[in-house]
């Protein structure tokens, strides 16, 4: 019995993706980066939070951080909660923060990119595989990675100075 439990635990450890929850600091980095996105005017940005069953609490926490508008550099972020199943209704948002298994999901990326929404995640595997436009980490230091193919597919582009300072793949 103990061996079974151990192996189940071991299996769970191996299969769980090794990224931390999206924090408020990550959100601020995402928000500031949005300030350098081209083709948008004004200082309001709508950030959709796409979540699955396992990340609903995380989604609620992020939406709470943005309630009343969260200031990040030049922009003010407002949240819109979007369950993964409703990914088709992302249109109108500027960015979609992907949580849990929504991150890396081809269907979510397809829905977002055709709506011109920038997909972003703190899971670097998502941006590396091209299912996210941007990958963000805020600790131990700020790291921003943009997948150019995914960006083109989502009709997202950035100010030249910003593009030169981040990692593009």
């Amino acid at each position, binding site marked *: 019995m103990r061996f079974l439990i151990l192996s189940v635990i071991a299996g769970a450890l191996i299969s769980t993706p090794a990224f931390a929850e999206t924090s408020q*600091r990550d959100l*601020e*980095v995402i928000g*500031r*980066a949005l*300030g*350098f996105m*081209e083709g*948008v*005017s*004004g*200082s309001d940005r709508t950030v959709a939070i796409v979540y699955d069953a396992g990340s609903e609490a995380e989604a609620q926490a992020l939406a709470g951080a943005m309630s009343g508008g*969260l*200031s*990040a*550099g*030049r*922009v*003010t972020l407002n949240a819109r909660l979007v369950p993964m199943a409703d990914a088709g209704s992302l249109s109108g948002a500027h960015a979609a923060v992907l949580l849990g298994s929504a991150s890396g999901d081809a269907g979510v990326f397809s829905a977002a990119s055709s709506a011109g929404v920038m997909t972003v995640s703190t899971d670097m595997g998502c941006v590396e595989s091209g299912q996210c436009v941007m990958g963000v980490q*805020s600790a*131990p*230091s*700020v790291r921003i990675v943009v997948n*150019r193919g995914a960006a083109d597919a989502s009709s997202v582009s950035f*100010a*030249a*100075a*910003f*593009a*030169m*300072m981040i*990692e*593009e*793949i």
Partner: protein
Amino acid sequence: MKKQILTTSISALVAGLAWQAGASAQTLDYTAMSELFGEPVTAGATGAPQRASDVPATMVIITGEDIRRFPERDIPGILRHYAGMDVTRYGFGDGQVNIRGAATGYTPRLLVLVNGREVYLDSYGYTAWATLPVQLDEIQQIEVVKGAQSALYGFNAVSGVVNIITRNPELGNYATAHVDGGTDSYTDLSLVAAYGSGDRASVRFSLGSTRADEFGGYPGNTGAAGFGDVEFSRDTLALEGRFALTNKVSLTTEFTHSEVNQVESTSIALAAESEYEITSYRAGIEADTDLGFLTVSGFRNEVEVLYSFGLNETSLTAFAVEDLFKVGTRNTIRLSAEYRDGESNSFPAPGNGDFGYETLAASVMWNRKFSDSIELTLAGRYDHVDWSRDGDLDPALYPFSREDYDVTIEEFSYNAALVWRPEFGGTMRFSTGRGVLAPTMFDIGFGLPVTVGGNTLVISGDPNIEPAIVTNYEIAYDRALSPTVDLRAAVFHHETEKDRGAFGPVPDLFPPAVNAPVFLFGNRGDTATTGAEVTLDGNPEGPWNWSVNYTLQSVEDDLSPFGVNTVRDYEGATPSHLANARVGWTGERFRADVLVNYVSSTDVPMQPVFGAVSRVSVDDVISASFRGEYVINDNLSVALNAQNANFGDGEQTNANTLTESRFWLSLRAGF
């Protein structure tokens, strides 16, 4: 370098209010970028925007917040507290900044720019810091790039480059008024403001005025006697307009004017009082196009300096075109071409014909990110310079004819650097560069007869003078030792071949080859500096922060004999050890800073009167400075400054003047 902390702080809220995302986002928005990445950003190392931790050079970035905490009145005073910066204070306003050895008054090796415009004086070849039309309150950041940087910046950027960037008026209105009053009749007034009308136009205005008693002369220097009675005066004005012509194209125009009277040490260690009047015009267009980020810019400097030996009038006109773009996801490329036209009057003796040069230069920079841990930067530049003189010289005095001045100089310079982020953490930089220290107007065209003891002697430039070549090799390592302590370290070897300038008390040419003995500016030999710098910055949680740094410089000269052919003695004049320590405390209403600076002993040249050259010993110097600030409210603050508090009436730091303690009270109103 302070760590920036990402927070939804008051500054972020205020920042979010006034700006419109996308308006003129081309010019590097230093504040927004540094808040995003949590560290300073710069375009000063390669011409392309980069995070401070990515730059392929040893760089110091001093932000406006940092500047405010120093009990210093000018930029050289601030720079001396950083690693690798050997600053000698020859007069109240004359602080010469030497990096990587070859310490001298009127140093030609450091290129200084304000918003990309050269403020270094290429007539004589030095920077008169007091003439910079910038007030400390309006500085966004000061960027210091160390080592040979000619491939990006051109001639004379051989020990380093200092670029002073002012706050961008497009990014928000501000107004700061600053009044200082202190000992030795020190008064300083500064007024800086920026105002934007709509999204399309904004203006920056800057006014500064300083008066103070100069430092007293060093007692052993008879030529400096009476300097304590000279009044240092500085008045500067700047006006800048920025216009967003379209969402992708912006225009910048700037006018500046400075007038300064100050005591200095010349390049031949002669103490002197000089008067400056400098006017500049600058314009630039930046466009974000499909071909990349294009910049077309130009400036004109009109300089009049009344030296003790004559009036010099020089003008410099420069145009540059630059294209910055990415190729694929991994390559950033910068192409640029430049034209310069420098002219000087016949100087110091009139009637020998105006002279000057024209330069055409082209440069390329390629930066490639091979992976997220290896990045390579290569840059190269080619300069073609044509000198000429438009009149004949007095054949009774000068050994050169007008045709002798038709000289062409062609030189390559390069920079190569590898930035590597190893598995064991931190960032390593391996770099090398070749810089060119070109002959200045004085080196080539100077002409002055002098009478010494009834005999006529001639001091002359030499059109055959060759550029000095500086080669720099460096290995650097930066690392966050803990979440609150940063380490920055570098070892370097810096060589100069055919160092140019400065004659000694013995002429180079004698009769019968010439009519009267002639002293020539010339190439005087080689010098090399090997050294290391280490900085530790601590930013723990809470009100305290601290910083310590140490620099070692070991110099070896192979120069013409001191006291005969040259007054250059870099081995003697370059201090072997420099050290700094700083502790700061930041509270709700009080801020305090204590700074200690150490410079080890030197032997420096002195020439109280022309022809009498000697060496003077200067002991180790330790200085302690303090600053305490009380924030009255959001707009008003008052600070007490004690600069070199332990020097009293005068401490010997060079052979020109004694450096005195100065105390002043500072009142600052900001909106």
